Structure formats: C-alpha cells, structure tokens
C-alpha cells in the first residue's frame, strides 16, 4: 500500500478551503444585479385559499414581483413530482395528489408555499410579505400517523381516505404457517419518530436567466444536480436540458434532504426570467424545519416467531408510514423497497410478510433521511430480536449468533440476495472491544452508585448502491441507478476526473483521487475531481444511499481501465513493441522482458502530439468515459453495542460506551470511513435520545428552531470505539460496500435496547428523553429498593 493509495488515511485535499473560510457554498455566490426572494408560507396546516391580494405589497419599496400559483399555471410550469411508482396490493397505482411549487387553491401544511415576493433586498421582500393579504378558509388538520385514514378530512381529492397506497411484500401464507408452528411469539408496537435532517447549511438557490442565449443557470444545494436538471426540465418544464445548467457547488451536508427537487429552486429559476434579474433565496433555519423533507415517522406492529430452540421461523410487520402532505421526490420508495426488503436483518428467517400503508397528513413531506427505510427496518428487527432473547432467557449475543446467516449468497424471502458477509466475525470483535464479559461487574458497580446500567446490541444490515437499473426499474423507480465517470488525462499527465457523484462532506476529492493515484501511479496532487456542474459532467445520478464508493468509484475504475488500455496502445507505438507485450505498473508502461519503459506522463504527451502513430490507426488523445451499472445492491453489515447509565432520579441517560464493528468491504480511506461511522452514530443517538419533530393537534410545528428541536451536541455524546472486519463485496470491481448510513441505521435500536435493558422493560419510546426514561426507570427503582 502506498502512502496515498487505496487503504491509506490520506488527509483531505478539500480541507484547506474549508478551514480557511474559502469554501464556496450556494449562499456565498452572488451575481451582479441579483434580486432576493422571500416565500410567503401558509400559517395554517390545511386551508383553501380564497383570494391573494398583493396590491399593497407591490407598492412597497424595492418590490419587483409577487408571484403565485396562478402565475405558474399561466406559464405552464408543472408540479413537483414523485419519481417512484408504487402499486397497492390490489394493483392500483399510488394516489399522487398535485404538488404545485406555489399553492393552487389549497395549502396542506404549515410552511406550504403560498407566494414568492421578489425585491431588491431580502429585507424588502420579507417586509413586503407581511403586506400580502391572503383570505383563507381554514380546514381541519390531519396530524396523527396512526389514525390519518380514519379522519373525515380529505387532503387530496385523489385519496379520499388519505391513503397513498396499501403495499405488501413477502409470503403471507407461509408466514402465517410459521407463526402457527412457533413455540414462542414475540410482539412489539414501535414508533419510529419523525426527524428533521438538519444539514448545517440551510437550502439555498440562485436562479439566473441569460436573455441573449435564452439559457438558465441554477445554483442550488443539491446532492444530485443532474437529477435536478432532469426533473426541472422534463417534468416541471422550466427549459429543455440543453438550456438549463444546474450547479451544486460546495454543499454543507445533505443526509438525504438535498436529494429532492423542491418548490424554492423551481420558483427561483423560473422567476429569474420573469423579473429579468438573478433571483436568490436562502432558507433560514425555521424555514428548513418547516419545508425540508422530514424523515422516518412510522407506526409499526411487528412479531417474530421462534421454535423451541430459539431459531427464527418467521417475521411479520404492519407499518403505517406518514408521507406528509405531498409525495416528495423519492418518498414512496422509502417505506416500501428501502424498508421491507431489509426485514430479514442478518438472520436466517424462512418466512417474512410485511404490509405498509402510506398515508397523507397535513404535515411537511417525508422522504429519505440518512438510511432511508433501513433504519426503520433495523429498528423493527433489532428491537424484536433483543426482546426475543430476553423473553426466552438467552444471551442476546448468543441468540443472534445462532440465527445468523452463515452461507453466501443467501436469498432472503424479501427480494434481497446477500452476496457476502461474516456476521459472526463482527459480533466476536464487537464483544471483545466492548468488554462484554466485564459488563456484569460494571453494572454492579453502577448500582452501588445508584445508577441503572444497561447494554444493548444492534446487528444491522443495510443495502447500498441500489442497483442494477433494470431491477430498480421493475420495482417502480423512474430513473436508472448507475453512475458515470470521465477520465481526462492532460498532455503532461495530470488528470481530471469528472464524476456524477456529488460530495457534500464525504471527501470524494480525496478518496476518488486516491483510487486514481493508485491505479495510474500519478501523485495525488496531479488529480482533480470535478463534480456538481451539469455543464462539466455530462450526466450522473448523485450521492445518496452510500452509493458513491460502490457505484461512483466503480465507474471511475472502469474508465481508468479504458485509459490504461489506450495508453498501452500508445506505448506500443512509442516503444516499438507489440501491444500485447506492454505492461502497466506503478505509473510506467514497459515492454515485457526488456528494460524499455515509458512513464504515464510521457505516454499522455505522446497520445496528444500523435507523432509516433498514424491518426487513422489510433485516435489521438487520452480521455475515456464509462457508465457503470452494478450487478446487485451491496450489503454492509456490522454490530454496534451501546452501554448506558441512567440516573433514576432524573431520568437522564448517559451513553458511557459505544462500540461499532462494521464490514464495509474494501476501504479506500479508513480515516474518512471512521468519520462517516462517527457521524452516523451521532445522528442515530440523536434519534433515540434527543430528536423528534412535533406537530400539535392543529398541525402547527412546535419544533421549528434549535431552541425547540434538540440537536446532538458535543456534550451529549461519548467518543466511539470503532473496529472493522472485511469481506470484499463481489458485486463491484473495487469490493466496496459503502459506509455513509451505517451508524444512523445501527444506533437507535442499540441505544433503546440498552435503555430497556437498564430499566427492565420494553416500553421506552424514542426520543428517550429524561421524562420518558424517568417513568420507565421507576419500576426498576422499586425493584432495586425491594432487593
């Protein structure tokens, strides 16, 4: 392994600009003569709009335009779309209500977009918004996930009972038979709490229209600028793709919430032409809470069937998933194909059946948030498994071990074919790092101090790099999930990599360069990564679902193969040898059995000056592209062990130890991978202990700032003990599985399992705030007192 190649903890190339304040985020970009947009949002959860009167606002200083849904309609601008078709059990398509970028006749959640005010300054636009008179007829709110379908209030005419779809997966009859044969049945009712993704950079957009070229440019906080262009062009109808450039510059975190195509960027780019000036919008944090797509929000009843020896026989789950007021871009896929296929966990479960009812409510749209469906599935499986071990009196680690899948490939009853893994290796290592054997002693010691100590496991699996495209197409996806790459070798041997992946914290500028440096033998400094601009990178699917290593880097690898193959042809002419006798290693082409060599840079120069070969026999230049479509999902998996101490007097839970052992396949940069694990765990602990979006019964968002929504802070978290095991992924050329979401998937059940272990019963809801835990702890306190 070289100091900069695959497997090296290279310090990040992108860091210098971030630590010196030279990063360039969307809100840092300004265009001459730009105007500012402010969105007038609905104060009501549900209302019809009778009239919008902007006369007074239009007369205020600096105001250029007040635009509404009627203006969008007049310009034939289409609504926002949901790009994944789900069919109900009865074969009927999901009920997708209209989703205009500015309300047309009705608002359906607090924060819904009523009008946009464009003015010379942001302050003028915001002042003018207060002068826009909107006459509403307020309608009842529908807030509660579990009872949304029982409400008499209709949110969308196409869905009279507020049902988006009733979907299922698995074999119902086989699963029922398994439960009939069971010696033990374990049951749980679980709520997966609604979360606000909260990347630290709020969303922003800057729309620019060039009259001379009849061309639009949109700077936006996107995880996938090409998908944004495709949707804005082909579905919303802003402009044809060749007349629309989308640039996603430095993006300050995404966690899924910046995948989606939102009202604000649509309106900014459209309004730029209407007002004849660039139009900029930057979200404030409360707007982010109101209108960024939320995550999770499931209500589930789940059961696990076991035989007399504790072997799993079957699993069934019924889930109600809240999709909010409108179907966001990929929302429909999250509680279906990103959820139920993971219900087998790491276990050999012969029969599984899942039913999912997706519902509309008058709340912000819900879509993918770090893990997207997989955290929800893992929470169901790992909470059930922990409870099952307790119910039958078996050690929770042992219970998992006797049920682990050990032979690969393994076909589960719910679509997935796991290609490789060694679950027991991760468990063994995790038990060792966590000093599981020493836990009873630590517990007794904590009891002496009046504290309740608990330990909890999570043996998670996830599916990353969703693919192949044909398979996801058959499941309803409106897009292919390949990735593209182009390798441009310059005449002096420096290299530019154009990738369809997008980095918003993942460190692609470093890890992708490591791959190139490793393969071409060029120094890291000679490699630049170009991403996030539809004018530079031809096409791409962006970054989400931990796909950029497994899919994005595989595309680069494929293009590098082509560059090396072409380089061999050039070298053969230069070295006057047969192409089949040319080897390439450590940055040098050589002729087998001789000392004749040509370094990579010289080969590149020869390719461009084209003096040593005939242009009819070999094309000049050294530039290759590739599209890579994987053969399967990848299946990262691992074991997390949480250890907590609870103060029974206050209900405060302290996370005292955290062990994570993950199998991510081949790792390019361990430092970056560990960083991803840390961040994921923090978000998972946030979900389990601190975070929760709350709407009151009127549909008002109660948690709309950092004063009300508890973000994990440094003093809420421990340092993490991170270990790795490795089985290479056989489904892509690099053996990578992906690591971005693992922590957020694994952590919540590990933590709740630890808390329920400490308090001695299962009824602990997320977020396990001091109030929740104090109540739960009182039973344990009485028991301790009695002993």
């Amino acid at each position: 392994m070289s100091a900069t190649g695959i497997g090296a903890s290279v310090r990040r190339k992108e860091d210098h600009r971030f630590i010196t304040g030279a990063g360039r985020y969307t809100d840092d970009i300004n265009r001459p003569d730009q105007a500012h947009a402010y969105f007038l949002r609905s104060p009501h959860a549900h209302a019809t709009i009778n009239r919008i009167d902007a006369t007074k606002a239009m007369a205020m200083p600096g105001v250029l335009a007040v635009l509404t849904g009627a203006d969008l309609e007049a310009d034939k601008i289409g609504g926002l779309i949901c790009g994944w078709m789900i069919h109900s059990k009865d074969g009927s398509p999901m009920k997708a209500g209209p989703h205009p970028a500015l309300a047309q006749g009705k608002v359906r959640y607090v924060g819904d977009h009523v009008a946009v005010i464009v003015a010379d300054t942001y302050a003028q636009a915001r002042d003018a918004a207060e002068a826009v008179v909107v006459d509403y007829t307020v309608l009842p709110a529908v807030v509660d996930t579990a009872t949304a379908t029982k409400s008499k209030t209709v949110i969308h005419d196409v869905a009279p009972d507020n049902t988006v779809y009733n979907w299922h997966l698995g074999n119902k009859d086989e699963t029922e038979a398994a439960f009939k044969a069971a010696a033990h049945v374990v049951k749980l009712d679980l709520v997966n709490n609604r979360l606000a993704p909260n990347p630290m950079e709020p969303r922003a957009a800057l729309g620019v229209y060039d009259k001379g070229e009849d061309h639009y440019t949109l700077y936006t906080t996107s995880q996938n600028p090409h998908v944004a262009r495709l949707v804005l062009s082909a579905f919303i109808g802003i402009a044809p793709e060749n007349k629309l450039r989308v640039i996603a510059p430095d993006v300050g975190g995404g966690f899924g919430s910046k995948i989606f195509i939102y009202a604000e960027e649509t309106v900014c780019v459209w309004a730029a032409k209407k007002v004849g000036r660039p139009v900029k919008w930057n979200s404030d944090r409360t707007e982010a809470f109101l209108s960024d797509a939320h995550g999770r929000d499931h209500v589930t009843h789940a059961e696990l069937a076991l035989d007399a020896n504790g072997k799993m026989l079957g699993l069934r789950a019924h889930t109600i998933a809240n999709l909010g007021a409108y179907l966001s871009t990929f929302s429909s896929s999250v509680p279906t194909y990103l959820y139920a296929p993971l219900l087998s966990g790491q276990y050999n479960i012969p029969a599984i059946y899942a039913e999912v009812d997706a519902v509309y409510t008058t709340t912000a749209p819900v879509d993918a948030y770090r893990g997207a469906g997989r955290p929800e599935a893992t929470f169901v499986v790992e909470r059930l498994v922990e409870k099952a071990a307790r119910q039958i009196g078996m050690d929770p680690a042992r219970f998992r071990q006797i049920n682990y899948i050990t032979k690969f490939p393994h076909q589960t009853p719910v679509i997935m074919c796991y290609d490789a893994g060694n679950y027991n290796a991760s468990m063994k290592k995790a038990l060792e790092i966590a000093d599981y054997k020493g836990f009873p002693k630590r517990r007794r010691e904590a009891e002496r101090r009046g504290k309740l100590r608990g330990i909890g496991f999570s043996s998670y699996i996830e599916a990353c790099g969703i693919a192949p495209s044909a398979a996801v197409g058959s499941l309803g996806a409106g897009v292919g999930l390949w990735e593209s790459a182009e390798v441009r070798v310059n005449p002096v041997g420096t290299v530019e990599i154009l990738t369809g992946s997008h980095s918003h914290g993942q460190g692609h500028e470093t890890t992708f360069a490591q791959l190139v440096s490793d393969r071409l033998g060029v120094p890291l400094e000679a490699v630049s990564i170009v991403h996030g601009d539809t004018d530079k990178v031809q096409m791409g699917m962006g970054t989400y679902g931990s796909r950029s290593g497994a899919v994005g880097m595989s595309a680069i690898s494929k293009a590098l193969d082509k560059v090396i193959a072409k380089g061999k042809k050039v070298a053969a002419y230069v070295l006057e040898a047969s192409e089949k006798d040319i080897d390439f290693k450590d940055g040098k082409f050589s002729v087998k059995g001789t000392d004749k060599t040509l370094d990579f840079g010289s080969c590149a120069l020869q390719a461009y000056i084209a003096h040593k070969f005939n242009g009819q026999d070999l094309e000049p230049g050294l530039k290759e592209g590739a599209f890579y479509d994987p053969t399967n999902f990848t299946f990262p998996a691992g074991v997390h062990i949480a250890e907590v101490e609870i103060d029974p007097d206050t209900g405060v839970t302290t996370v005292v130890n955290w062990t994570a052992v993950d199998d991510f396949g081949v790792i390019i940069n361990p430092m970056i991978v560990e960083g991803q694990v840390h961040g994921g765990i923090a978000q998972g602990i946030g979900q389990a202990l601190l975070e929760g979006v709350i709407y009151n019964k009127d549909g008002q968002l109660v948690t709309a700032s950092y004063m009300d929504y508890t973000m994990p802070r440094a003093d809420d978290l421990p340092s993490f003990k991170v270990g790795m095991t490795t089985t290479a992924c056989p489904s892509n050329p690099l053996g990578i599985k992906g690591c971005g979401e693992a922590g957020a998937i694994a952590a919540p059940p590990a933590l709740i399992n630890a808390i329920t272990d400490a308090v001695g019963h299962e009824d602990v809801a997320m977020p396990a705030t001091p109030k929740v835990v104090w109540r739960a702890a009182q039973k344990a306190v009485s028991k301790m007192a009695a002993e």
Partner: protein
Amino acid sequence: MAAVSMTVNGKAVTADVEPRTLLVQFIRENLKLTGTHVGCDTSQCGACVVHVDGKAMKSCTLLAVQCNGASIVTIEGLAGADGTLHPMQAAFREHHGLQCGFCTPGMIMSAVDIVNRKGSDLDEHTIREELEGNICRCTGYHNIVRAVETGAKAMAGSAPVRQAAE
C-alpha cells in the same frame, strides 16, 4: 442609514448600513468575507462565531452598529499573512475534524477562544462542554474533540490569536 467603522482582520473598514444590519450580514455581504456562515438564526449553532475584541461571539446576534470601533477577526484572518495555518486550523485538518465544512469556521473560532480562556491543557470533558454552543451534524464531534485537544497543545507557547491579528 447608520455609519459603522471597525477593524476586520487587521484592515479598517467603514460603511453606511441599515441600522438593522447584523454583524454577520455586514461581514458576508458588505465585506464579502463568506467564510463566516449562518446556520440557525437563534444563536444556537455557532457557525457564525467570530472574535470581537478577542472574544468569541455569535455574529448573527450582534448588530453591525454595536461593533463600532471594535476589532473583529474572522476565519479568513486566522492564518498567518504568509498563509501559514493557525495551529487550530492545522489540527482540524490533521484529525479529520470536519466533513462538509459548513460549521468548521465557527467551530475553529470557538476552539481558539476556548484555549484563550481555559489554557492549552484541556481534557475531553471540558472540550465537550465548551463546544456546547457549536453544532456539527457530520462528525459526531469525535474527531473535533481530538482536533481541539491537539490544536490547544500546539497553541501553547504561541501568541493568542487576538494579539497576532492586531
């Protein structure tokens, strides 16, 4: 309009601003120093932390006119004139204390302030408590804590930043 004048990163600046202009708006929009970020609007996240007369302050919660006559250091003014990184900047890079980079300028400015107030021998508990006013969504703080520990030690013996900038 109100006249303001202050020193920012060693340079004297003056401007006429609307009285309601926040210090962070003045820094970002008037001075085009976009390294200072706005992440929340409620003085919680700390992405906007700058040094005002040597103390860490949240520039989203100060009016520009309140800083009349003050000496301000932003993230752009932390490195040496020759581009040499401040030890805290170098420590964040060395320990992978940043991912998306958005909270990083405020995090580094707060970290320097912690060392100025608490000295360079900081234990993990102190660092975590002192970072309470800075939110990071990417790193889980693990590597930020390592970075601050290291940066603090490296700062020992070097002049406090407020003196270096003046």
